């Protein structure tokens, strides 16, 4: 069974601020994943710039695979120190997990991580040492199949100050909340993160007193997605494509009205066309047995492309019930994506005088594939 490491995060800015003072960088390499979390001192744009700076430097150096000691001393020496308070402007946590599930976690000035194992949250075994006058915690352990790991910024452990509690939740309190939420459904990490954000926000009375970020990580099975878009050039390939999509392993999407009609005809299944517009720019989705999602073609694909362009790895995929949002979510939830693309030209579209970049299916799909590769998904395209 093939496993992949998945991670999701959400950052919430302090109430009244536009940007969050916490930064997360996630780098996916072929054989390892690097996650960096940095929390800038204070809040607002200054904190945002400082934490971004710190996270970028750290992830850049980690990506180049320099020895850890060197990376740490570079970061610590470059981190600006506040003149007034005499402390570093930003905190830093980073972790590297490799193919053998060996996880290495380094924390500087930030709350300890939460490991969910055997239905309870535990503290990791840390080794402490000093470098450049900084106390540094390091943990090395094997990340197991059922484990889940949560990293938070101090805005989370302080949740409740000035809201529901006098002194904030503290590590124990946060551990308790994580345990409660994760125990209920251990599979849906994305949903759990959303729930936890709601919980901590409630402790603040919906007016976050500090920026806060929570990152969750776990292993899961590889997910496959198959997409058929466009009628094939040769009509005799209709049945071949329909068979291919219905027999494919994993989830399935059909994009395009004509394509859906071909599939319904060839597979002899009912096609139920939707009525409801969730978004006025995206035509409704349809339904067919055995296919997860049927959408309109060009407009939906274009929207999918623009959503993918905005996506940063680790973010929680877009909400929304319209075809394009659902499409994007399915893409982001899968690890390998296979496109079956028919290249027949839809005569009717020619009469519309669409702008060239909107009108050419193969181009849009190539661009979608490029975006998916950027976030390290395996993409395969077959042309017909």
């Amino acid at each position: 069974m093939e496993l992949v490491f998945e991670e999701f995060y959400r950052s919430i800015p302090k109430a009244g601020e536009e940007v969050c003072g916490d930064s997360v960088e996630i780098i996916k390499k072929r054989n390892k994943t690097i996650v960096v979390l940095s929390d800038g001192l204070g809040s607002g744009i200054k904190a945002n710039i400082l934490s971004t700076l710190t996270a970028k430097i750290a992830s850049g150096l980690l990506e180049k695979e320099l020895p850890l000691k060197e990376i740490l001393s570079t970061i610590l020496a470059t981190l600006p120190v506040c003149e007034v308070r005499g402390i570093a402007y930003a905190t830093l946590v980073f972790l590297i997990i490799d193919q053998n599930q060996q996880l290495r976690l380094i924390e500087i000035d930030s709350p300890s991580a939460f490991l969910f194992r055997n239905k309870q949250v535990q503290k990791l075994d840390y080794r402490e040492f000093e470098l450049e006058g900084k106390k540094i915690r390091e943990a090395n352990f094997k990340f197991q199949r059922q484990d889940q790991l949560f990293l938070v910024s101090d805005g989370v452990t302080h949740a409740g100050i000035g809201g529901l509690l006098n002194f904030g939740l503290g590590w124990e309190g946060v551990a308790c909340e994580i345990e409660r939420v994760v125990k209920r459904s251990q599979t849906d990490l994305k949903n759990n993160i959303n729930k936890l954000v709601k919980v901590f926000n409630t402790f603040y009375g919906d007016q976050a007193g500090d920026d806060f970020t929570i990152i969750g990580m776990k292993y899961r099975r590889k997910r496959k997605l198959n997409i058929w878009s466009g009628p094939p050039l040769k009509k005799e390939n209709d049945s071949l494509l329909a068979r291919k999509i219905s027999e494919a392993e994993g989830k399935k999407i059909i994009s395009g009205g004509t394509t859906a009609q071909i599939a319904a005809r060839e597979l002899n299944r009912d096609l139920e066309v939707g009525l409801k517009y969730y978004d006025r720019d995206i035509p409704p989705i349809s339904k067919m047995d055995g296919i997860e999602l049927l959408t309109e073609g060009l407009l939906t694909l274009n929207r999918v492309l623009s959503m993918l362009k905005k996506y940063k790895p680790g973010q929680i995929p877009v909400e929304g019930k319209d075809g394009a949002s659902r499409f994007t979510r399915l893409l982001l939830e899968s690890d390998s994506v296979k496109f079956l693309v028919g290249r027949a030209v839809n005569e009717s579209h020619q009469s519309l005088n669409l702008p060239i970049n909107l009108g050419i299916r193969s181009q849009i799909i190539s661009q979608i594939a490029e975006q998916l590769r950027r976030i390290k998904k395996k993409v395969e395209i077959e042309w017909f």
Partner: protein
Amino acid sequence: MSKNILKICIGTPCHLMGAANLLESVEKFDCKLRQKIELKTSHCIDNCCDQAPVAEFNGKVYQNLNPEKLYKIIRENIK
């Protein structure tokens, strides 16, 4: 009472030419009229996309529609 069937095409060309407005206008018909109509959507009716938006009412195809035209057609042809 037999239902009148209205099918509105929501293929890409029809959508771009305002199929959503047609759908919306049908929902705004007065109650009595709306009750007599069974509203459906469809991908491509009759391959006449250059005459979009297209709808089919009781088996007959109408092209180049707008909400006013559609209302008139329905008024005239309703059973």
